[in-house]
């Protein structure tokens, strides 16, 4: 069936003719224009103005951030150059630091040092009792961290209890030797008891030669990489 615009126009005439009285009213025209103005501003604001201003602000923020980052990078590069110079300065001393805080428990070298110190100080090392010490390898790095707030999570400790006997001067020298030992060690407990002459078997010993027993509870440190 061919399209006849005259009949089709007549079918829809009632719709657009009914708008005529509304358009002729001044208040309706004003309301309509205001409503469409608000809607148009909202629509263009959301779909056109917002993305544009957002892009502008994002780029401005990016420029500002990159300027700050560039400055911080320059500062860090300068700091790294300084750090390299400091490192070269202290590089010869680093083995000493490794001795003070080794990368594994090194329990046996520590006990050997205690024994050598006893020999140097002239005291008798009567007992050495290390706590459970992880040996070399993977286990050394799986030790649960200690509860001490001074010990960081990468720092681990183990305890060693020792007892030495000797005259006061020698015991004092031994104690000072422990404090001057390069290996990082702290004294957790100290007990100093006199040994009766009957026990030492030296009844003729005078007061200065009285034997003392020093019991120490030491805590030594190592670093987990």
């Amino acid at each position: 069936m061919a399209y006849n615009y005259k009949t089709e126009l007549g079918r829809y005439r009632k719709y657009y003719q009914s708008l005529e009285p509304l358009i002729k009213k001044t208040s309706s025209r004003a309301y309509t224009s205001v409503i469409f103005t608000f809607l148009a501003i909202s629509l263009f604001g959301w779909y056109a103005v917002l993305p544009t201003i957002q892009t502008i602000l994002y780029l401005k923020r990016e420029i500002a951030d990159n300027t700050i980052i560039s400055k911080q990078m320059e500062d860090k590069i300068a700091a790294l150059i300084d750090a390299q110079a400091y490192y070269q300065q202290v590089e010869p001393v680093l083995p000493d630091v490794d001795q003070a805080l080794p990368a594994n428990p090194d329990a046996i070298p520590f006990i050997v040092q205690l024994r050598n110190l006893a020999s140097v100080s002239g005291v008798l090392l009567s007992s050495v009792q290390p706590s459970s010490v992880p040996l070399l390898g993977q286990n050394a790095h799986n030790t649960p961290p200690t509860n001490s707030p001074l010990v960081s999570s990468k720092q681990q400790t183990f305890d060693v209890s020792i007892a030495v006997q000797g005259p006061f001067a020698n015991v004092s020298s031994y104690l000072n030797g422990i404090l001057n030992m390069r290996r990082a060690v702290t004294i957790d407990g100290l007990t100093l008891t006199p040994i009766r002459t009957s026990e030492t078997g030296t009844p003729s010993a005078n007061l200065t030669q009285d034997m003392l027993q020093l019991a120490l509870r030491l805590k030594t440190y190592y670093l987990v990489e």
Partner: protein
Amino acid sequence: MDNDQDLLLISVFTFFTITLWITFELLKTVKTTTVSRTTQQIVVPLNPKIDIDTLTVITNKKVY
């Protein structure tokens, strides 16, 4: 007339809602940093100073 006023109110509220929405979106854009977390970690300041005094103390201690 009432119908026109209702439509006007709806359009005004729509306008204010979208204006507020745009404002907060722009504020968010201004406040949000564009620097990635990796870059932030890289530019953490570094103190190159090494405690020489402590190293000297360690060096002066004895190994038995």
